């Protein structure tokens, strides 16, 4: 458990944040320059906050009132940097082993476990210069993890990678969050990564927290505006794999009482999944449409409408206990007479749910 409450200077503005991270991923999300990196450097002891308190598992790492400021090397917070920062003169094996010698008495993961978790065995004898960007980041994650940290801080670990490399690493991160067993603070400005990985989402803007909570809750809020993404904004649904239609390569996911068909997933029936549905991929209808290619037609009612005088209207639709966001034209919203409480049909194309937007949840094998 990591409790953070800090104030300090970040570039041109003051930061003032309070949040906690428990086991699993807490994502710090915000645009570039919102203070994310400085905040994690303060947590790691690389930048000194002006005031505040940082506590990790009942151990005070920083407390301005009592003058405690544990140096970075004794904080036991693993740091994964955007630019990997592998030691160029050491092999991958030596890089991985670097921090473990300082982990006295701590029972961290075994070397083979880390290697297996991140798929590093073919790389062990190589030097960082010969690795691809994605491989470097995997080694950097392994190096931080094998040092047996009490928390992991990951500062935009995927930001410098292209889409293919990102897709290569995300499954490893997904395993990491389930198997690392320590709180992970994950900094990103990419909403896709954040909604896939985070159990808790902390949205930052100009050094301050504007929203915090479970991703599904935060992402269905309309009052945050562009802070939760423009193009990529969308709500998160969670459900269970109900079955596969092999003939058409489709998988049915049960979301409460609704069934949603998505392109085939390689997951066993019963697996819990959550996925982001971009607001711009959802259309609305007043009557149930017939003879239409869209496979997912979900009955719900409008809970919230937001417009800003521009072309768009943002609408939140309650689908059972969950929320879906739709971005339609303001004109359509007016012509349909959409209002809070009005019943409405939400139309979601199956192919709008891409594999990269979907996560299998931990504890997926157990029943409800």
């Amino acid at each position, binding site marked *: 458990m990591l409790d953070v409450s800090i104030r300090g200077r970040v570039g041109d503005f003051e930061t003032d944040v309070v949040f906690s991270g428990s086991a699993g991923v807490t994502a710090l999300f915000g645009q570039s320059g919102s203070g994310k990196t400085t905040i994690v450097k303060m947590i790691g002891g*690389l930048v000194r906050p002006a005031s505040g308190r940082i506590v990790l598992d009942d151990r005070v790492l920083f407390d301005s009132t009592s003058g405690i400021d544990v140096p970075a090397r004794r904080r036991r917070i*693993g740091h994964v*940097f955007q630019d990997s920062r592998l*030691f160029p*003169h050491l092999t991958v094996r030596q890089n991985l082993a*670097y921090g473990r010698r*300082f982990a006295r008495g701590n029972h961290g993961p075994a070397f083979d476990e880390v290697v297996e978790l991140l798929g590093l065995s073919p790389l062990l004898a190589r030097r960082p210069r010969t690795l691809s960007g994605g491989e470097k980041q995997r080694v950097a994650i392994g190096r931080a993890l094998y040092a047996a940290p009490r928390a992991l801080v990951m500062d935009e670990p995927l930001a410098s990678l292209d889409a293919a490399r990102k897709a290569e690493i995300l499954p490893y991160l997904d395993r990491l969050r389930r198997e690392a067993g320590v709180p992970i603070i994950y900094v990103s400005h990419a909403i896709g990564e954040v909604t896939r990985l985070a159990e808790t989402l902390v949205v930052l803007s100009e050094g301050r927290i504007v929203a915090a909570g479970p991703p599904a809750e935060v992402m269905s809020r309309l009052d945050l505006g562009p802070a939760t993404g423009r193009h990529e904004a969308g709500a998160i649904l969670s459900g269970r794999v109900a079955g596969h239609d092999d003939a058409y390569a489709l998988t049915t996911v049960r979301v409460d009482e609704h069934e949603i068909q998505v392109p085939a997933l390689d997951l066993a029936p019963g697996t819990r999944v959550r996925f982001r549905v971009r607001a711009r991929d959802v259309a609305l209808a007043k009557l149930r449409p017939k003879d239409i290619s869209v496979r997912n037609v979900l009955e719900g009612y409008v809970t919230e409408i937001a417009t800003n005088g521009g072309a768009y209207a943002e609408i939140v639709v309650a689908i059972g206990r969950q929320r879906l966001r739709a971005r339609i034209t303001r004109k359509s919203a007016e012509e349909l007479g959409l209002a809070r409480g009005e019943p409405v049909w939400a139309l979601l194309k199956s192919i709008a749910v891409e594999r990269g937007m979907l996560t299998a949840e931990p504890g997926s094998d157990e029943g409800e």
Partner: protein
Amino acid sequence: MTALSPAEIEALILSLQVAGTAIAVGLPVALLIGYALARWRFPGREIVNGLVHLPLVLPPVVTGYLLLILLGRRGPVGSFLEENFGLVFAFRWTGAAVAAGVMALPLMVRPIRLAVEAVDTRLEEAAETLGAGRLFVFMTVTLPLALPGILAGAILGFAKALGEFGATITFVSNIPGETRTLALAVYTLTQTPSGDLAALRLTFVAVIVSLIALIASEFVARRLSRRLTG
């Protein structure tokens, strides 16, 4: 070409001994100064930098004379060292090593400073987050990454120490078997009638020794940088 005389062999061995001692003692000093100049911000930093580089611009005779004043048996530092540690530099080969070391210092400090400056501090920061203390970070990250520059400084310093003349002859004179290094021996021979052939022989030896040192350093530096980056 006839074989070297015992006196000439003595001068060669003495030169290597003096230069080797100067670098063995001077390199750690150069490393400390180079690191401090590269990484620390302290008052008087520019003065330290200036003092280190002074022998580069002063006439060597002046440097030698200053050493004589300071480290001579009646000099403030020299008398202190003799009384407390029994260390005497004046007119001893150890004094020649001091003179060679002082003259070589700026040539060692500069490449070391540049090499340390070129080491990415973000790597040191990463090592710190992994739990490493300052000394460990220095030994395992900074030092190995700066090694090609440190080696370049050491070789340059060794070559300079091997050929040092002005400060040496002023500080410790030209005593056969004690302070008469290769350079001083060549000088003595050129002052002697009929010493031309012997002077030429020693000159040849000096060229060979220096060349071997330079080629060896180039070879080691190349292997090192390949290992570091590759």
